[in-house]
Every structure is written in structure tokens, then in C-alpha cells.
């Protein structure tokens, strides 16, 4: 977190600079089946973030040394397009994207029924086309939808959502200014049906009580997002009915 205390992030009426209430999420839209070539795909816009995910597989894993005898491996590549950020970033992976790819893969492996596909690989490509704080969460949500669109069996979805702290107040879903100048960020991947957590990162400063409030907000928002995800899948498979 930037943690620059001299930037005021809450209005006098307790609302945030963009007018949201402290427990209010940015608008989120979702659509599946958007990429003709992929086995499954989805686009999620969350605030001004744009995340696109594609799933290829399951196919036999190559080279053989990456195969697991008893299950499929889930291979995730999280990537930010050069034009997705305020300063252009060089094409290719950096340390941040490699870390996010790793923990996102581990979160998705926790819900995909990987034991059904021994020696296989399921590739998940996450491309961030526009970034406005919260891209890893938008990416996780898009990846879950793309997996569902590909017909990969899962025991639950993983919903990406974050809360954090600004001006000593816990708020839901930090936007860019709040991320830059806030005090803490807690992105998680929630299984909306079971109430379990498959993804967890956090940085900044949170008391144990503040942590609990963040998690309350996160679980509440995960429900909302889950509904949007279900609607997106229905829109494709039920013909939008």
C-alpha cells in the first residue's frame, strides 16, 4: 500500500470520493463464450478493470515431467497488456505477474475436480486489458467463468473480491486512488456455496478486528458477484432466459 496519509479519501458525509458507500462495490459485468478459438472464455469488467480469461483443455500435459499421475495440473498465466496501466509496462511476465499466476492457479486447483483428469493440463489464460485496482480479483472471477464455460467440473466457483482500509475505515472494493493512498488491501477468492476461501493475500496494516470487518464485506460482495456470474452463464446456456 502506498500509505500516504495526506490524501483524504473519504468525503465529510462518510461516502467515498467516487460517491460509493463504504460497503459498496464498483459495478461489475460478466459475459461468457466471447472467444471463438478457446474451449471456454469470459470477460469481466469490474469498475474500469477489463479482464478476459480463456481456458484450453484438458489435454495431455507436455512435457511429461509436468504430468501428475493422479490429477490434472492447472496452468495459469496472468498477464497485463502493455497498454493496461497508466505507465506502459513492457510485454512479458514480471515478478508480480508470476506470483499472481502461481497463487491463482493454486486457488483454481482447489475447486476444479482435477482428480478426474490424470496426467492432463488445463490452461487458463488471464489477460488484463485495463487496470484500475483489483485486477487479480477480476481475473479470478473471469477464470472461474471461463472454466465453467469450458464445461470443466468444479465443486464451486471462486469469486475474486477485495476489501481494505482507507482513512482508518474499512471499505469494500478499493478503486485506484484508494489502492494508491490507502492503508490496507485484502483480496480473497471465496467459494460462494461452501463459504471457504481458496485465495488470500493482504498487505498494509489491519488489526484483527479490521480483518474481520473486511472479510464480512468480502463475503457479502461475493454473493452479489456470484449472482452476476450465474446470470452470465444462464445468458449463454439458457439463451438468456
Amino acid at each position, binding site marked *: 500500500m502506498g500509505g500516504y496519509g495526506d490524501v483524504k479519501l473519504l468525503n465529510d458525509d462518510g461516502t467515498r470520493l467516487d460517491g460509493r458507500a463504504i460497503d459498496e462495490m464498483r459495478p461489475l459485468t460478466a459475459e461468457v463464450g466471447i*472467444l*471463438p*478459438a*478457446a474451449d471456454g472464455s469470459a470477460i469481466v469488467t469490474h469498475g*474500469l478493470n*477489463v479482464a*478476459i480469461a*480463456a481456458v*484450453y483443455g484438458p489435454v495431455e500435459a507436455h512435457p511429461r515431467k509436468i504430468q501428475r499421475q493422479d490429477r490434472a495440473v492447472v496452468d495459469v*498465466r496472468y*498477464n497485463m*497488456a*502493455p*497498454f*493496461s*496501466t*497508466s*505507465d*506502459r509496462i513492457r*510485454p*512479458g511476465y514480471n515478478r508480480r505477474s508470476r506470483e499472481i499466476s502461481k497463487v491463482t492457479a493454486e486457488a483454481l486447483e482447489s475447486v476444479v475436480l482435477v482428480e478426474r483428469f490424470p496426467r492432463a493440463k488445463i*490452461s487458463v*489464460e488471464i*489477460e488484463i*486489458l*485495463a*487496470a*484500475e485496482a483489483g485486477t487479480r480479483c477480476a481475473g479470478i472471477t473471469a477464470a472461474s467463468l471461463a472454466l465453467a464455460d469450458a464445461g470443466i467440473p468444479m465443486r464451486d466457483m471462486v469469486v475474486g473480491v477485495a476489501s481494505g482500509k482507507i482513512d482508518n475505515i474499512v471499505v469494500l472494493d478499493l478503486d485506484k486512488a484508494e489502492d494508491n493512498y490507502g492503508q490496507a488491501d485484502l483480496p480473497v477468492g471465496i467459494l460462494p456455496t461452501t463459504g471457504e476461501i481458496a485465495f488470500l493475500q493482504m498487505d498494509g496494516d489491519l488489526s484483527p478486528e479490521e480483518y474481520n470487518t473486511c472479510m464480512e464485506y468480502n463475503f457479502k460482495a461475493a454473493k452479489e458477484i456470484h449472482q452476476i456470474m450465474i446470470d452470465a452463464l444462464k445468458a449463454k446456456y439458457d439463451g438468456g432466459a
Partner: protein
Amino acid sequence: MVELVPSLLRQELANLAEDDRRIDGRSQWQSRDIKLEVDCLYNGDGSAKVTLGDTIVYAGVKFEVRTPWPDRPNEGSLMCGAELRPIAGRKYEPGPPSPESIELGRVVDRGIRESGCIDLQSLCIIPGEKVYGVMIDIHVLSDGGNIFDASALAAIAALRTTTVPASTFDIGDDHPLQVSKAPMMCSFTRVGGRYVLDANEQEELGGNERIHITLGDDGHLHSLQKGLKGVFTPAEFAEILDVAQLRCTELRDMVSAKEAN
């Protein structure tokens, strides 16, 4: 659509060509539907999305401020690159830039650069000290065939709707980037023995060499490239150049119409 193994597919394409037909029902010089969106991405100083059949390509433009090259103190720079990442299709692998992605970026780059549509001197801020660097990044999300034309169109459309983010660098007010021309690329692939316009993925899989032609507003050639295994005759080139002239004019009109919105 049935997946054919390449040799059967080649035979099928040859049979169709003999009857002057194509695998998706188009005529020889007919393009698939194109959809163009511009200014569609937050954080892109310019951006465009092109949908060409099953092909989807984004282009984004970003500015940076840098010191000019010593031998060109009054000029900014323009750079175009392309990424062909695994999201684009089953055949693309992760790793360092492939020869295919390098070729794509460089061919699009040459078409724009050589048309002179951007006056590099207009990108100078303080001679010898500060100039703008303009970076165009092409991002292919779905390869359904003919990614070259989709990429070139996305790149020039993004450029032509770009805002110079001068205020970000404390250099005055934001203003539109001056792009004086609209170079357009048109590509031909040999399928079943003859050239066709805008080959789809199956035609590329069962086809031979391709020729990329970039034409300026006045119909002049700015960039040529032959790719893949195969040869052509001067007479064949003369024919496709004529088709390219017509097609590039159509494309240019489409971009203009978009800008007028």
C-alpha cells in the same frame, strides 16, 4: 465445422477453388464482416478493437517522454509491437516473442511508419532534450485467420483516435494526435492454388504463402511482405494489387466513418 487433417483439407480447398468457391461460401475477393470499436480501453491513450470473423485483436497506444536519439534531436519515436500469446489459440505457446509475432509487429510497424502518417518532428517537446515516444501494442485475443489485416486496422484506428496525454507529463493540455494519413493493409493467401482475400483459419491451415500489401491514401505502396512457403509470379501480384487498391479504400472509409461519430 468439420476439422480436416491438412492433406485432406488441402484437397478440399483445391476442389473448391476449381469451382471458384471458398470453404465458407465467400467469393475470391470477399472479406468477412469487420467490426471496429475505438477508444474502448481505460488507460490506453488510444485504443481499438477489431473483430474480423473469428479474429479479435486489440491495439493500445501509450506515450512516454524520453530523450531523443543523438542523431535525431528534433524527432520523437514510433514503435509498434505485437504479442501472440497462448490466449489467441491452441497453436500459440508461452515463451519469448516468436518469429511470427515479431514479423506481425514489424510489418504493421513499417506500413504505418513508411506512410509518413505521423510527423516525428511533431513529437518533439524540447529539441535535444525531450521527445515523445509513441508505443502501439497489438494484442491478438483470438486468431481466426488473417490477424495481419485485423492488427494493422486496429493499430491505425487506435492511432487516429489517440489523445496526446500532455497534461500527464506537465506539457500543456491534452490534444488529439495528428495523424495525417490512413495507411491500410490488405493480405492475400494462396488457397487451392489461387490467391484469396482475407483467408480464414482453415484456409490458412491448408494454404500456402501470403502477401501483405500496405497502401497509402494515394494508392502508393508503403510496405510489402511475403510470408510462408511458396512463390508467385509478377502477373499474380499485379492482380492482387488491383484488388488491394479497392479494398484499402473501403477500409479507409470505414475508419473515417468511425471517426466522424
